[in-house]
């Protein structure tokens, strides 16, 4: 009997400790950010999903080596505990990086900022736009832009910006492409808390169905169907433990998808070169730090050409060949 009492007390103390941890997480300084349905998706079978109703984080994966190395440099990977000393072209590189253990890290995600616009621009000019079965306009605008071992340092680095720092799992990737050669990069493969619970009081503010497509699928399978515009916004808060919770849910007020210029086809030169890219290509003095080209190259993008540099070069060759 006494041991059953011990068991009951263990359970009650554990539940108490969980509430204590949640209270501590939500006390003190918290991060706050507004995300849309693109970044916090309903379950596909909503509202019939079993279990507590939860929203699932979606973020831009940045799975291409060149893009990944723009933000997750060698230096940052080493800070996170990875060993990056073996060159991608070395014979033992594949074996070495495939054996690399995943690491827990704090990752700064920027919402609908410069990083997303650069990705959006690149996607609009390449066939990669359809690679993941989702049109660029429907993809998450939440983009990982920085990572480190310390939460406070990262939070201080992005004051008053639409940036949220979350606990995530980072893994090393190795790919030996016959065309581009071997490359190594880091990737955010999952979040420690990949979903957030919708409080009962806010559940009524969510749409009655999961996000649906607005056009029939392309019979050829070349173009993915467009999805409904985001229907809700979520004010998300992140506490001292780096775990997020839903503070508020409201109807989407800004249709960010309207800003998107062209869903698939190659853009006009003036579209392709918005966001000051024209200056970097045509100007006699290029301030590379604006494009983060030199900074990233010095931070260890030594195994391949950084994507921004390639992007500038590509534009020079195609869009503005006559300049």
């Amino acid at each position, binding site marked *: 009997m006494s041991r059953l009492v011990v068991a009951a007390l263990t359970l009650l103390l554990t539940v108490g400790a969980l509430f204590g941890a949640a209270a501590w997480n939500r006390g003190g300084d918290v991060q706050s950010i507004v995300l849309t349905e693109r970044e916090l998706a309903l379950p596909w079978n909503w509202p019939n999903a079993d279990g507590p*109703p939860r929203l699932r984080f979606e973020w831009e994966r940045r799975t291409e080596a060149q893009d990944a190395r723009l933000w997750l440099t060698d230096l940052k990977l080493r800070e996170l505990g990875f060993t990056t000393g073996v060159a991608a072209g070395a014979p033992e590189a594949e*074996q070495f990086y*495939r*054996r690399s*253990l*995943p690491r827990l890290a704090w990752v700064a995600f920027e919402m609908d900022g410069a990083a997303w616009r650069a990705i959006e621009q690149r996607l609009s000019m390449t066939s990669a736009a359809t690679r993941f079965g989702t049109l660029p306009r429907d993809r998450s605008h939440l983009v990982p832009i920085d990572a480190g071992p310390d939460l406070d340092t990262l939070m201080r680095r992005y004051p008053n910006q639409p940036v949220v720092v979350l*606990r995530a799992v980072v893994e090393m990737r190795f790919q030996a492409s016959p065309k581009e050669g071997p490359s190594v990069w880091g990737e955010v493969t999952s979040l420690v808390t990949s979903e957030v619970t919708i409080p009962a009081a806010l559940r009524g503010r969510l749409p009655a169905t999961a996000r649906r497509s607005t056009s029939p699928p392309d019979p050829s399978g070349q173009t993915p169907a467009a999805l409904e515009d985001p229907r809700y916004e979520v004010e998300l808060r992140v506490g001292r433990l780096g*775990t997020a919770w839903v503070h508020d849910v409201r109807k989407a007020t800004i249709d960010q998808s309207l800003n998107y210029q062209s869903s698939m086809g190659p853009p006009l030169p003036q579209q392709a070169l918005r966001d000051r890219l024209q200056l970097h290509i045509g100007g006699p003095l290029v301030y590379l730090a604006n494009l983060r080209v030199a900074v990233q190259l010095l931070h260890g993008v030594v195994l391949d050409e950084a994507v921004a540099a390639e992007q500038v070069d590509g534009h020079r060759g195609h869009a503005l060949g006559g300049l």
Partner: protein
Amino acid sequence: MAAEPRREAQARADQIRAFRRELRALGDADVVRLSEAQEAEVGAYHERLLATLARDFDVDRSEHQGQLSRGLRLASLFGAAALVAAITALVQRVWGGLALPAQVTLLTAFPLAALAGVHVAAEREQTRYLAGLFALVACGTAWFGIGMIARLLDLPLSELLLWPAAAFGMAVASSYGFRIVFILSLAVLVVAFASVFFAAGGVPWPTLFERLEPLAGTSFVLLALSSHLRAMGEGFDRAARHTALGLGLGALLVLASLTGVSLLAFAPRTSLALYQVAFVPVALILLWRALRADDGAGSGLVALALALFLLIRYVDWFWDWLPAWAFFLILAGVAFASIAALRRARGRVGAR
């Protein structure tokens, strides 16, 4: 009441049944025959003893009762699993309509009610089948509840949650000697210890299922310490030994069979070869220890792991370059050789 006295009582009852059968056989062969008075006296003594054992320990008094008891054990396991599944499905189903306090109350109430059920059932029946069922339900719903409350509060499913889960299971298991609950809790405890290795290095703890050395190491530490767990309950040392053997040899078997699951800083093929070389002596030492300790289940576990290892190696090495008929013929040859070796060993054991 602990399970071990019941086991001894059952062994005594089985002895009496065997004695009666043998006495009948001796009489039929005209070797020895008790007088009617002696037979009545022995019979009355055994009946009194069996009645006492049945009253105190609910022992099986016949083969049929024994078969029904095995059915009861299976039914209680199945019932516990089904009850936990029913509770989790019910909770998942009604979830949307409940507020957080109601959800947490529900998740906490199920295991607490099951604990009360354990106490009531254990006080009323000697066999503990129903109490064992409630104990499994208590553990299943408590572990589900802890994980679910963490998710409801948007907390990560951290490795730290494994410790209270294991502590809860251990407390329940040691209350009335529930061995299945003990084995499950011990497995959670081994995972908790192994996860420390990864968590301390900033590596997500579920990686322990992908890189198996810490799990294997922790299991073998448990094997070394298993004899000290007798104090927690009768038969718990044996259950701990079998849990450790199962987990440790399972992990070692995977390490010796697959590349990419080792933490060793060698090339994957080298690590694999090292584990393949190490597996056989490790298994033989464990088998020798189990045989010396007269641990039938333990030696069976090790022999099974060894047989699986040899079979996997054989398939891995020879399947591609031997014709199918030769492959299976060699397997049959190995089986015949094993039969011959075991017969010889059996003859020697019998001669002693």
